[in-house]
């Protein structure tokens, strides 16, 4: 049995995340309930869509408490990362509360389009094994309308009308606002770092 669990919370990028892991030589198992998490060495929570719908699904699958109780590193991707925070302004929904902070809508401004869609540079904010082999200024692929502010947990930030958190780590809780599964070599490197890091 594979020890990397990918949570199926209805996110449509589930397949892409699994393929990215397969390209790294890992065969993940897709899990939809608490029992599936048992024995996992790493857990990945992908997500595309809206926060209220995603939280509703996690509640429905009885995954909220088991995710909060996880003792192994968890990586949230895109919406999956936003769900790690306390709340999201999107639908004013309570999230998992594993990382301090509130997710907010990206502000639209002249020349600043929302959704933030495309390749943007990562700016390292503090050292972290998640960024091993990733150079300051390397690009990752983002598609999102909401983002977490820069806090003490921010590992890397990105700039779209102001800095926001692109990579977060709070103990074993990790997150990437971009899509590592679609961020070429940089994304693959960050995924591998997550799979290999000590905790």
């Amino acid at each position, binding site marked *: 049995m594979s020890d990397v669990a990918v949570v199926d919370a209805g996110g*449509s*990028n*589930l*397949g*892409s995340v699994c*393929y*990215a892991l*397969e*390209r790294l030589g890992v065969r993940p198992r897709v899990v939809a309930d608490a029992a599936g998490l048992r024995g996992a060495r790493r857990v990945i929570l992908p997500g*595309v*869509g*809206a926060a209220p719908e995603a939280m509703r699904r996690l509640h429905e699958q009885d995954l909220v408490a088991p995710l909060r109780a996880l003792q192994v590193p968890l990586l949230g991707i895109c*919406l999956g990362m936003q769900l790690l925070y306390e709340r999201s302004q999107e639908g004013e929904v309570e999230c998992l509360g594993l990382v301090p902070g509130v997710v907010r809508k990206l502000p*639209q401004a002249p*020349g600043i*389009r*929302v*959704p*933030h*869609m*495309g*390749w*943007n*540079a990562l700016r390292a904010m503090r050292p972290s094994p998640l960024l091993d082999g990733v150079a300051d*200024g*390397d*690009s990752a*692929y983002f*598609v*999102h*309308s909401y983002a977490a502010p820069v806090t003490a947990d921010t590992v890397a930030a990105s*700039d*779209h009308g102001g800095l926001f958190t692109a990579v977060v780590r709070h103990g074993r809780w990790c997150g990437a606002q971009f*899509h590592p*599964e*679609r*961020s*070429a*070599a940089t*994304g*693959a490197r960050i995924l591998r770092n997550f799979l290999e890091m000590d905790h």
Partner: protein
Amino acid sequence: MLSRRLIPCLDVRGGRVVKGVRFRDHVDMGDIVELALRYRDQGADELVFYDIGASPEGRSVDYAWVERVARLIDIPFCVAGGIRDVETARRMLHAGADKISVNSPALERPALVSELADAFGVQCVVVGIDSIREADGQWRVRTNTGDPDKTRALAVRTLDWIAEAQRLGAGEIVLNCMDSDGVRRGYDIAQLRQARALCKVPLVASGGAGEMQHFAAVFEQADVDGALAASVFHSGTIPIPELKRFLRERQIEVRDV
């Protein structure tokens, strides 16, 4: 800072990549996965696959090649052609597409855009628009442009549809300027500038790229987020690494590969 995206567009018919001039006379360009991988290696920022036979033939794209592409490439890609309901879109996204683009079916039934945005979030929903300048000087939309015999002219003004599509939940607009398509005389800057003024979401220019300067012009003068092209990339006339160097020298932000 957000990079400007270079997006090769692969028109797909019968499982092969094809390219026509002014939407006619398609010639075979090669195998889908082979071309996708080549573009990934060259530094394309994103790929769009248009199943150009799908809408006129009233069928949807098949999923097998979408999954084949998704397994192999590690850059984002969008699938277009014949997506007319949430279920089809869901299968496409689950097969591994990052975005889905709707064109003719959205014009026939605009509520489709809202249904897709509600189901998957606006960031997955691209509205593709084929636009042509008519005798009265107005740009108007066309449907089913994949097959000239089935192409229909609608009374809808392109700029009105751009505003409406955003209101309905489009997360990105791809504006294909048909007067320019395949003739390599440059993007339709005048039209794209007007579209840009209305477009709060990302806007991608399509149709007319022939020289590297055309890309610089469309980014500088129409402030588009991405530029889509087919023939100049497929033929090798403009190699993507060279184009990126050219744009970077002009202080246009592009992704390093």
